[in-house]
């Protein structure tokens, strides 16, 4: 993406090389004034005189008109949706940029690390075969030898297997977020990058994405770049930035989560930024999500399981689940009862 601040002459038209920076600046001043909605007929006439002063003035104006035509040629009916679409695309790019900048360094606590040295396998010698495990309620960040950043969420277990020709992460359980590294030091050039889960294998290059493996469901969310989803021997399906897919054991192809159906009510990237973000989530689903972060499960009585939860809940604080439950108890007609082996959410009229 080039950013020029002085206007380069159009090299296909030698005469245009004569249009000086000064002429362009005058043109810009005219254009700003005439499009303000405040210009008078006198000013429009003055502009015509300016054009007539010098053929180069006219030429510069024509160049600008040609470029502006890209916008002015939009049909009147399509203008509103054009504006909205361009705005949304621009916002989304900003969000993606911010996400990259704010992936925080997570606090360090115990990481279970089992190194098993060199092992022979199908892909030649394994150069690295490490397990990373997080305890319940803990999140960890690891930087791998190829430059990949790996974030593990609560109660997760991965096996990182790098061989001469391939980089593979096997996600046994839990949730991870990955920013793939450039692999500059690899002898045979940048190696393919795979994440293996129970339901599917994901291949990615130069991307940022999150994978969530729970019982018989895998969820993939792509932040940037492209991930190819391989299920059994079916042709791979591509996931692009901002796509979220659900893959189940009993389905042969991935299902894309979009706004009209199967809405993902929990922001898949919240935990990476130290928060849980729920949007119109069923209390039962939210309780199940909270249970992932502590030893004592959170359970709902059927009478309240359909209540809706929306909000942002901090994970980066002492007793995050306790705090979240207190917030829920204030907002909804429920109370939390400690049953010893579980926390029970019951109906409580306010």
């Amino acid at each position, binding site marked *: 993406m080039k950013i020029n*601040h002085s206007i380069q002459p159009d090299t296909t038209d030698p005469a245009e090389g004569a249009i000086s920076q000064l002429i362009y600046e005058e043109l810009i001043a005219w254009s700003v004034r005439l499009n303000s909605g405040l210009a008078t007929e006198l000013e429009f006439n003055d502009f015509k005189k300016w054009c007539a002063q010098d053929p180069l003035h006219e030429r510069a104006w024509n160049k600008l008109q040609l470029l502006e035509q890209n916008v002015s040629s939009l049909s009147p009916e399509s203008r509103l949706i054009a504006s909205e679409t361009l705005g949304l*695309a621009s916002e989304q790019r900003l969000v993606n940029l911010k996400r990259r900048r704010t992936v925080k360094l997570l606090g360090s606590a115990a990481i279970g690390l089992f190194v098993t040295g060199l092992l022979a396998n199908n892909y030649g010698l394994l150069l690295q075969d490490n397990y990373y495990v997080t305890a319940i309620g803990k999140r960890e960040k690891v930087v791998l030898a190829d430059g990949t950043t790996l974030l593990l969420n609560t109660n997760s277990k991965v096996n990182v297997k790098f061989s001469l020709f391939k980089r593979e992460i096997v996600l046994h359980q839990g949730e991870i977020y990955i920013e793939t590294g450039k692999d500059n030091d690899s002898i045979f050039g940048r190696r393919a990058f795979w994440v293996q889960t129970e339901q599917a294998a994901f291949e990615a290059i130069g991307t940022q994405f999150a994978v969530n493996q729970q019982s018989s469901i895998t969820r993939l969310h792509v932040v940037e770049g492209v991930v190819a989803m391989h299920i059994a021997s079916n042709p791979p399906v591509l996931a692009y*930035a901002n796509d979220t897919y659900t893959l189940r054991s009993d389905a042969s192809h991935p299902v894309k989560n979009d706004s009209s159906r199967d809405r993902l009510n929990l922001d898949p990237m919240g935990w990476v930024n130290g928060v849980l973000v729920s949007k119109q989530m069923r209390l039962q689903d939210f309780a199940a999500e909270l249970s992932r972060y502590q030893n004592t499960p959170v359970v709902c009585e059927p009478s309240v399981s359909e209540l809706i939860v929306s909000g942002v809940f901090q994970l980066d604080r002492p007793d995050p689940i306790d705090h979240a439950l207190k917030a829920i108890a204030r907002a909804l007609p429920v109370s939390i009862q400690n049953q010893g082996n579980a926390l029970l959410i019951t109906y409580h009229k306010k």
Partner: protein
Amino acid sequence: MSSVNSLLQEEVHALYLSHHCWLVSWIRRRLGCVHHSSDLAQDTFVRIIDRSASLSHVLEPKAFLSTIAHGLMVDHIRRKELEQAYLQAVSYLPQREISSPEDRMRFIEALMRIDGLLDGLNPKTRRAFMLSRIEGMTYPEIAQQLSVSLRTVETYMAEAIRHVLANN
């Protein structure tokens, strides 16, 4: 067919024979899909035929091909971003949905060009420009919408037009 054109065709043909396979794998390693990669490789060669006068200046064929292919991949991803934003926009403005697929395609093409024109502008400047040109707002209206002064809107507009002239 002039003799210049047939020389180019020969050069492209030779390039294709020696590097087409390599290009498909190069793209596939970045995109992860064989189907899309063949398409993009073909598009790369088509673009070379469309845009080049001759290939005699090309010293590094792999660098040459991968640069063009990379540009096409960026376009491809940009297009996907716009299509997705369009779907989201339609969900807010269902009555503005463009019904014919050909019109929709042309619409996205037009947005790609506008998006390209404004690439690199600050978000506020971009927004001001779009409010002026697409929604036809006057500067006082834009000033109110963005909660800035009239002076600031004029600055934004000057910046936008300067950017459009300098980068296209």
